[in-house]
Every structure is written in structure tokens, then in C-alpha cells.
């Protein structure tokens, strides 16, 4: 299956390689570099590249290309999913997955890669098992390690791999038992020029942070489970009970994990919490343009909009922007041609406005199309779909845990066409 893995930085620096079968020369990456050059933007690199003897499947995350070498037929999603899992594990271990952290923790990275794959086939990808095998680094531990020369390899033999519940460690103990659930909903929408939604839907996830002792068996139920149109679960969830009773019954992994993700059926009308009035125009002559954007609340269910950010990908010919904002700060990066207007909290009494002129490259024809706006926002204490958690029951353990549910609505891929 997966033969080798190369990590390549955005700058084209190959900084780590790992082989699970025989060693493949790193020259195979030349084909990748070629494709990378052709694509210009890192996002445009094709995920599957064919070379005369191998296939390169790559992902791009956190400014790093994870390039895996494949020799024979394999479901490409299998590899892609695994590579993302690797990136997530690094993130989980080191807090962030960047070139520097990987280089700093190179020993642990090798240990992890060795445990995650055996002969190219995934062996242990559950973070709970991995953490039992290889302890994540802490400042104290790394200090002790340097002094004593010991390593992060777990002293005890891990038992998680042997269990039928591989996602949970045995013998978990906490003094205070807590279970928190975050219902995070994202609105994906495309609004057209006039502000009507061309397309809108709600995607949600429930992130959990469960710190419970022993082997608790949890049951989470909703007030209105009918809302959920399509769901996908963490492997711990018993699908049969969902099918029959519409409750989520599971033995949780220890710590943070994503319990489920869901999709609200497209039939439901999606409340769009924000409206945008915009006017961007470029003049035929004089190589300049004008920009005027106003943002206002629409259907917010009485909550305030926070962390409002408007991002505009300007045409290549826009050299600079001379704007004034009534609220928040704006920043135009002339290299990436991205205008970011960070508004913050939205005040419904005094709508924020960004106005001013744009200067274009002289002599260049005026851009054909106006740039579209991407909007980011956050609404606390609200699940825009109306989904409500009813109750959480703990079976199998005697203690009474702290329980908590938090609702957040965010803008997902929220785009306004102009």
C-alpha cells in the first residue's frame, strides 16, 4: 500500500522521508516538484500524480506537502485519509503541524510513523493507542529526557490495541469527571449580487471533551433529531441504536474527539444571519476603482454577531487600496491581493462600513469580474438550525459527572458574489 512518505515544505524543501518497504530514492519527488511548479498555487497541485514507476498521492496541509509513494493499485481516498490522519496526529502531539515542530520533534515523528503503519498498512491510528505507545512531549519531559537520555517510548506495554474498544484506554481515572459537548454549526452559502441565497446549507459537528473515569457508557439524545438529515459518527457510536431510537449511544474515547458530524436537510430554509451591501466598481479610465461595503444583521435570532471578518480576493491588477472603515481594521496585502476587513462585534445600531478607492496597475485593462466576498462570523449560544441536546445519561459508572453543552454558529464557506 503506502510505500514511502516525503514531507516537503511549501518552499520545496524536502525535510523528512520515511520508508515502510524498501527504500525509494528521493529523486521520485522530482515529478512532484514539476507538478508543483506547473500548478503555481499550492492548492492547485493535483492530488494524484503519475510517474513512470510510481504514483504520488499528496495532500497539502499547514504549508506542508505530505507526498506518499504508491506502487500498486490502492483506493486513493485510503491514502489521502491516512495522510490527513498523520497530519492530525502531529497536530495532536505537538500542538501544531508545521515544519519547525516536526523538525524539533523528529524522533517522536519517526516513532509515530513507525507505529502508524506496518508494511504500508495502517496499524494504529487511534490517538488513544498512540499516546499509550509514545507519550506526547511536554516541556518537563523533554528536559528530563535530555538529562537522563531516556525517551518518550511508553514503559508499560499498551493494551488498547488488543481491546475490542481500541479507541479507549483502560484504567482511566479522573478526580473530577466531566463531559462537555460543543455543537458547532457552519453555514455554507453562496449569495448572489442582490443578496438572495443561491445555495445555503448547514453542516454541523459535535465535538466532545470527555474526561470520565472507568468505562462509562453514554447516551446523548436530542430534542429534535428529525432535523438531522445525514450523519456520520465516530466509530464508538452504536449505529443500530441511532437507527432505531435516534439516540447516540457510545463508550467515549478519552479526551477530545469529534463525536459526529451532520447535515441539516436541504429542504429546511436556512437562516442567513448577515446581509452585505456592496458596490465595487472599476473605472474604464484612470486605472482606479471604488469600493463600498456595508454589513448588517439579518436573521440572528436575537444574538449578536461576533468575529465578523470580510475577505476579498482582489483581481491581480489592484495595486493598493485607500479605504476608511467606520469600525474595525482593514489590511490589504498587495502580494497575495487579499483584502481583510476585521470588523469584530456587529453593532446593529451603527452598521460598519468600508469605503474608499482602489488603485490599479496603470495601462492594464480593467478587471472583467468583481471579486467575491468571503465572510466569517461567529454567533455564540446559538445553533442556527435549532438543534437542541435533550439530555446526557451515564451508565456503567456510579459517579455523577459535570455535563455541559455549548452551541456555536459559524460561517463556513460563506461567499457573496458581486
Amino acid at each position, binding site marked *: *500500500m503506502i510505500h514511502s512518505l516525503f514531507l516537503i515544505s511549501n518552499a520545496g524543501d524536502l525535510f523528512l*522521508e*520515511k520508508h515502510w518497504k*524498501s527504500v525509494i530514492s528521493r529523486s521520485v519527488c522530482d515529478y512532484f516538484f514539476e507538478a508543483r511548479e506547473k500548478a503555481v498555487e499550492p*492548492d*492547485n497541485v*493535483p*492530488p*494524484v500524480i503519475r510517474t513512470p514507476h510510481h*504514483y504520488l498521492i499528496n*495532500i497539502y*496541509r499547514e504549508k506542508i506537502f505530505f507526498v506518499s509513494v504508491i*506502487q500498486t*493499485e*490502492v*483506493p*486513493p*481516498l*485510503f491514502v*489521502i*485519509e491516512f495522510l*490527513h490522519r498523520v497530519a492530525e496526529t502531529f497536530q495532536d502531539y505537538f500542538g501544531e503541524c508545521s515544519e519547525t515542530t516536526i*523538525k524539533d520533534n*523528529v*524522533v517522536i515523528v*519517526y*516513532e509515530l510513523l513507525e507505529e502508524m503503519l*506496518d*508494511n504500508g*498498512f*495502517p496499524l494504529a491510528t487511534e490517538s488513544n493507542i498512540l499516546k499509550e505507545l509514545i507519550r506526547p512531549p511536554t516541556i518537563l519531559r523533554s528536559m528530563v529526557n535530555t538529562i537522563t*537520555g531516556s*525517551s518518550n*517510548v511508553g514503559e508499560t506495554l499498551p493494551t488498547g*490495541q*488488543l481491546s475490542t*474498544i*481500541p479507541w479507549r484506554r483502560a484504567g482511566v481515572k479522573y478526580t473530577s469527571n466531566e463531559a462537555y459537548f460543543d455543537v458547532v454549526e457552519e453555514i*455554507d452559502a453562496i449569495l*448572489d449580487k442582490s443578496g438572495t441565497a*443561491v*445555495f445555503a446549507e448547514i*453542516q454541523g459537528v459535535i465535538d466532545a471533551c470527555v474526561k470520565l473515569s472507568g*468505562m462509562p*457508557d453514554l447516551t446523548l439524545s436530542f430534542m429534535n433529531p428529525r432535523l438531522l*438529515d*445525514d450523519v*456520520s*459518527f*465516530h466509530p464508538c457510536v452504536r449505529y443500530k441504536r441511532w437507527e432505531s431510537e435516534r439516540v447516540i449511544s457510545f463508550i467515549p474515547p478519552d479526551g477530545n474527539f*469529534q463525536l459526529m*458530524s451532520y447535515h441539516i436537510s*436541504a429542504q429546511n430554509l436556512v437562516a442567513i444571519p448577515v446581509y452585505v451591501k456592496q458596490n465595487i466598481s472599476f473605472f474604464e479610465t484612470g486605472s482606479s476603482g471604488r469600493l463600498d461595503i456595508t454589513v448588517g444583521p439579518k436573521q440572528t435570532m436575537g444574538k449578536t454577531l461576533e468575529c465578523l471578518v470580510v475577505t476579498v480576493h482582489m483581481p491581480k491588477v489592484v495595486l493598493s487600496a485607500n479605504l476608511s472603515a467606520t469600525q474595525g481594521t482593514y489590511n490589504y496585502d498587495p502580494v497575495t491581493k487579499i483584502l481583510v476587513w476585521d470588523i469584530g462585534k456587529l453593532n446593529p445600531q451603527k452598521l460598519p462600513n468600508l469605503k474608499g478607492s482602489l488603485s490599479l496597475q496603470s495601462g492594464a485593462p480593467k*478587471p*472583467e469580474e468583481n*471579486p467575491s466576498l468571503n465572510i466569517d462570523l461567529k454567533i455564540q449560544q446559538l445553533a442556527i438550525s435549532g438543534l437542541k441536546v435533550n439530555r446526557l445519561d451515564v451508565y*456503567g459508572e456510579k459517579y455523577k459527572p459535570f455535563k455541559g453543552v455549548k452551541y456555536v454558529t459559524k460561517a463556513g*464557506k460563506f*461567499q457573496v*458574489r458581486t
Partner: protein
Amino acid sequence: MLGMSANSVSYNEQGSVESGVDAAQENSSIPASISSGGALKKLVYVYLVRYAEEQQDLALLSISTFQRALKDPNQLIRASALRVLSSIRVPIIVPIMMLAIKEAATDLSPYVRKTAAHAIQKLYSLDPDQKEHLIEVIEKLLKDKSTLVAGSVVMAFEEVCPDRIDLIHKNYRKLCNLLVDVEEWGQVVIIHMLTRYARTQFVSPWREDAVFDENSEKAFYDSEEERRVDQSKPYIMDPDHRLLLRNTKPLLQSRNTAVVMAVSQLYWHLAPKHELSIITKSLVRLLRSHREVQYIVLQNIATMSIQRKGMFEPFMKSFYVRSTDATHIKTLKLEILTNLANEASISTILREFQTYVKSQDKAFAAATIQAIGCCATNISEVTDTCLNGLVLLLSNRDETVVAESVVVIKKLLQTQPSQHSDIIKHMAKLFDNITVPMARASILWLMGEYCEHVPKIAPDVLRKMAKTFTDEEDIVKLQIVNLAAKLYLTNSKQTKLLTQYILNLGKYDQNYDIRDRTRFIRQLIVPNEKSGALSKYARRILMAPKPAPVLQSAFKDRDRFQLGTLSHTLNSQASGYLELSDWPAVAPDQSVRNVEVVEPVRLPYLRLVLNCFCVHVESVSESESKENSDDSNKSSSSQSEKSSSESDSEKKKKTLKNKKLQQQKPDSKDSLNYYLPPQIIQKTLNIMTKYILIHIVLSISTPFFVNCMCSLLHLCVFLACQFDAVSWPVHVSLQASSPVFVPETSHELLHRMTGKGLSAQYRFTRQPCIYGNSMVSLQLTLSNSTDQALENIHISEKSSTGQNIHRFNAIERLEPQASVTVSMGVDFNDSTQAANFQLCTKEDEFSVSIQPAVGELLLPITMSEADFTKEQGKLVGMNESSATITMMPENVSSQSVNRKVVSVANLGVIPSGQENIYRFAGKTVSSGSLVLVSVALKDPDAVITINTEKTVMGSMLLRQVKTALTNSGP
């Protein structure tokens, strides 16, 4: 060793860790550090595996350490030793690896067995000559019932011997059932393998006369008709086929995108058309995932949407393009939108396309124009609208957009040129402003082709071109020559000179293609003495009506590859791609998937516990029997007499004391207490429940729970045969139940004359044997008729025939005139072949043999009537034997039929809803094959039917049942 970690840090600074040659020099210290153990072991392993190939001699030094670790009591150490050993790519250790793999494949720990499955692939890539041996191991591991092993072994199967589909048959149902609990990576591999398997084993669920790429609307209108067709020749899905579809469906909810994709492709390739829609939502859900995932999923959706528009139509808006999407994702979405377009949705889609055309990403805008062209040809209603829209684009400022529009318009006009001469004229006007060669060439071609529609403009264009000929690109020059030739033929008066001028220019062009073309055209159109024949046809050659190009999706022929594969993504066969076979016209034999032993799953260590438990109880009962033997001497000799007097409560108490008595009414737990001291029973029950409870608490996941329940049942059965308390409710379908009837007749094993005073009798207890599951349990009564005590009575160790015999413990001393009853077990291996063995005393040896009746080789089971008929339906043809007999009138009553059948064979009676049909079920002791007997009374005849896989046993049993039912008497 610190040196080594320091080393890796320094490589890190150089930018790469694994580039070092220096690191290899450190190798000499490796073997020592492995054997010394310590925390760095893991890193040393990583290192060792990496450099083993280059430093073989040094790597070999460490082998002995791993060999030792393979025997470690800790399963994790055994597993990791095997893992590293098998990763060392040094050919010289192939035999060692082979041996280790074979051993690990039978390890008690599923984790070690999983590692063995991984090692198989490694060994195979190191030395493909080992294939045959490895297949044997794979075969063994495929039978494994642990979810841990399943994924890995199927992976090994796919790598080593994907063509050995016969190995899957017996494991098919098990794999289907385990699937949900296998880890996610294993699921992907198993699903892909099962897809291939199913395509070879089941008939097509798609209607025969249905074209594969039927359109959704057609399916909609045809549904009535379809139903009628279905009724005329009903298609019944193989239950195994259904099982696969049913068991994979929940996996659509997996968080792992690869699993969802795998299930989707399985449904696409295997499910009936109307069930396909369930995968749509899940696939659309994946579009929320990472860019790379989107790319693969969109590709697959594109292929699907060509054949089944209806599936994705409701989700059309999910494929709308965002300006932030990567270019390849945009193009794929465009492709899908084009495929989904129909009369109803085209207007929305076109409006959407209009936005895309203005995109800053010019490659994407060009692709959109092509997509508009595609829509225009596919949906004739909008052709005109599209054309007008495209003509508008001709005045776009961007060159690529204009060029692409021209090319697309050219293609569109070819389909219906007559109505659109104004568009051609418009294009001729624009011609001067267009600089992209491809677009210029296209316009010229249009002029030439339809010069009759624009008789005035065409010569003028030619005139302009003659002026600029030398400055044009090659492809434009070729088209100029073409245009000139065509005009010369249609309108030679105006263009003769122009043509000749152009041909002259072409003659001296630098490009030989153009020189060639010029020469050819000149010969063709200008009549001269040499080429008279051909030039007559010049008009017909050049002005022949040309077929319109078909604008079709790039994904049109992608479905020749299995969806979700690398080959599908690349649209070319990747190495190692396994073709998905066509459905067979006739389904191969379904019975190959029948598993003989539907024994409940037992975990090895559970068996161990059971064994310990057996030993424990045995020793207790043995000691007890010794105590009892004094006062029960008499009773045991007259055992049959006692056993028949079960109703007598007075005697019952007495008989209960005698543990060897088997024949009594089971009356719940109370009877347990009579056999063993109460405290021991308490203890064993405690252990038992604790053990099971622990496991139930530890793992609520269903299969394990079932395992536990099964083991609980086993314990119960075991207790039952020990204590004869058989009233435990046993609900598992193939679980042995208590015998309905136990015959008292004893058979002579050794006559006292031949035995020099030792006589032996045996009888079949008809109970599950405690010594082994495949054994028939026997009771031996040994009596001493001499006047001296016989010493050391035992069965000789050497068995003359192949049967596996569990001997009774040697009887140290048998007093004169005393007798003793012992139990033993014989594995007859489901045949009536006699078991021969030596019965020995201290002085003598006697050859004896036990010939079982076929009815004794069975164990009764209970099942519902419905299950019975279902199972019977599976065992037809070769597996069925039947006979018609004439019944004696006195035998017709239900009681007597039941009694007669169960006296002949150890079968369970199935409660029957029908009056004149009697059903009996059992399983063979050794292999656990079902034996189903039914007797249907049709006055005065009766039909006896026996269904079993063991055909020989079936026919023998039939003969015996026949005799029993025809004979009168009790």
C-alpha cells in the same frame, strides 16, 4: 546509544534525517543494544529496519534476539518481535520468517495473528517463491474469527493471491457479519475485495433488458412497466448478496471518507438500481472534507452522474463553484453540472455558468464555455440561447474566452449551419480583432465550409488572408489553404487568382506540412493532364458533408474501471489493478458458502478456562465417586433398572447420589446440588458469572457479548452433561439441546470369557462429550467376574485406527465381583467406522472395537419450524435423500413416530404446526453439519426426507429410520 540520538539531531539540522551514510557506521552497536533492552529499543528497531538491506551481516546478528522474543509470554512482545523480524529485508532469513509466521498464525493472541498477516505480505515481497506456503497460512488466517485479524489477512490475500476466490467462499458470511466491527482501514480493503467476489458469484440485480446507462426520467416513466416485467420473470436476490448490501449500509455513516467511498462503489457495482440513491447523501457529505478528498469524490460522482442523473439532481446546488475552489475542483464541478443539466434545470445552470464565465481564473472560464457548448448540444431546446450567449462572449476582452467561444460555436454550428449564416457573418466581422490562432483557424474553417451561405463575405476574407498569409501561425495557414481550395471550387470566377497566389505562397513555406498540403490541393483542384481522374471528384472530396463532432464528457468511458480505485482516478490501468468481472449469467453454486460448523465463536482463552474448569470439576467428581463407590456398588450394577424408575421419588434420591446415572427428569438447579458439594457449585458458578460479567462490562460491543453468551451456554451445556441438569433454556439455533430419549441398551465390548474374567459393556449416553466437541460420549461398565482383584485397567496408548479417543483414567484396582462405570469419548469423525483399541489390565491386553450406529453420531438441536424449513431449503439436491414407506397403522400416531425416530437417532423434535409432518433436527458430532429429518404422513404411506451435507450418513440414517418405522412393535 546516546550517540545515535545525537546523530539524528544533527541530520535534522542538515535538513533531512534519513540521508545519512554516517548513521550506518553506528550499526555495530545495534545488536548489543537490542539485547540489552531499554527505552531506545523502538528507535533501534526503526533504524535496524531502515538499514538492514544495506548492512545485512550486521542485521543478522540481531536475529537471534527476535527469535527469542517470539517465544515471550507477553503477546505484545511476540507481536513486535515478529513485526521487526519480518521487516528485515534480508533474503537469507526467509526460512526463519516462514517458520515464525506459521507459528504466529496459530498464536492464541489475535494481535499476534494480525501481525502474522502483515508479515505474510512482507515475506511475499521479499521472496515470491514462498507463495504456496503463504497461501496455506492465509487460508488458515481467513478462518479467524477475530475482527483484529480480518482486515490484515484480507489485505494479505489481495496482495498474494487475489485470484484464489475459492478461499473466500467459506468465510464470506463471516466477513460480512464482522465487517462493522473491523477497524476502518480493514473495512476498506474487505469491501473492495467483497465487491469483486460478489461480481463473480451472484447474478445481476439489474433488469436484463435495462440498458446500463438508462436515464432517470426514463426509469421514472418506465417504472410501471418495469414492475410488470419483474413479475413475469421474478428476480430473487441471493440472500448472501443481500447480506452484503445490508451489512455495508451502516458504514456509509463512517467518519472515514475511504470507507464511505468504498461502500458507495460497492452499491454502485452491486446494488439494484433503485437502492442506489442511499449513497448520494453520503457522497455529497464528503464534499465538505479536504480538498484532496473532494477531488477524488467529485471524480467518482462525475462518472456516476453520466449514467444516473437522477441520483444527484436534488443536490445540484452542492456542485456550485466557489471562487476559492482549486482549479481542478472547479473543472470537476463544472463537469458534473453539465452532466446533470436537463430541460428543467438548464436555465438555472446556464445562469450559474454566466457567473463562471466572468471568473478571473481564465482556464476555468474557458472550461465553462466548453461546458455551455456541451449543454447546448445535449439539450436541443437551449441551443439557440447558448449560441446567442456565446456570440455575446465573442466581444469579450479576454482572448482565451473569445477563442474558446469561437471553437465551441464552430462545433455547434456544424450541427445546424443553415439557420445561422448571420452568426458566421458576425464572426467574419470580428475576425480582424481575434488573434488566438485556434480561433482564427476555426473561423476560417467555418467560412470555407459554409461559403455558400456567405457568398459575398468569404472571398473578401480570403483576400485579407492572402495579404497576411506569411505572418500567420501554421494552423491558420493550413485553414487558409483549405478556404482557398473550397472557394475555388464554388466560386472560381472571383477567387481563381487569389487561390493561385496563396498556393504559391504555400509552396515555399518553411513548414513542410503546409508545403505538402499546398501541393496536394493544387493537384486536386487545378485540372491538368496528369491528375484528371481525381480532380473530377475534388468537389465531392472537399465539400463532403462532415459529421458534427460529438461533445461528450471526459468521464464517459471511465466506468470501465471500478469506482474509487486509483485506476479510475488516472483513467488508465494502474499496476496491480484487478478487473471487476461481469455478472455471471447463471449464479455459481451457492452452497459453497455454507459453513459446516456454525459453532458459536469461542475465544481461545475462554476454551482454556473451560478446560481448567473441566479438570477442576472432574477431579472433584472423581474423588466423590470414589467415596460413593462403596455404597453404590450394587446400585451401579443394576443401573438400568434404576434409571427407568425415574418417577419413583424414593429411589430418585438414591440415584441422584450416583453421578453416572444420566436418565432422569431434569429439574432445574436443585439437581446440581445433589452431585457436588454445594460449596463447590457455588464457587464454580461464582467464578463463571464473575468471569462473564467482567467481560460484559469490559466490552459491550455486540460480537463480544455474543461470545460471552455463547461461552455461558457452553458452560451450561457442560454443566448439563456433568450433572444432567439439562433444563437450561438454549436458544441458539444450532446449540445442542438435551436428548429426547436415551436408550438403555448396552452393547457388549468384551465378553468375560474372552476377557479372562473382565467384561465390558458400553452404551451411548447421547450427551455432548465433555472431553471434546467432536467426540461422542460413551459410558463403559467394567465388571470383574473373577475371584481376584484386577489391577490397572486402562486403554492402551496406541490406537490402531485413526480415531481420537479420550481414555478414561486407569482404574487402579477392581475388586472381585465389583463393577465400575467410566466415561470416555471417541471422535468417530462422522463415520460409522469402528473404533478399535486395546483394553488392558496389568497382565493382559484385549482388542476391542466399538461400532457406532449412525444415529449415535448426532446431537439433537432445537430450532423453530421456520428455521427448519429455511435450513431445509438450503440442503436440497445432492444433500437430500428420501424414501416412501408404508406405515403400520399402529405406528401412525404422533407419539409413536416421534419415539421411533428418536430411538434410532439422537435427534431433537421440532414442534410442528402441521399435523402430519414430523420434523427432527440434529447435527453431526464431529463436523457439526445439520441433519434434518422430516416424516410426512400420507395415509397409509409416509415420506421420509433427510437433508444433510453428509450424504453418506444421510442415506444410512434413512435406511435405519425406514426400518424403525416399518417395524411394528414399541
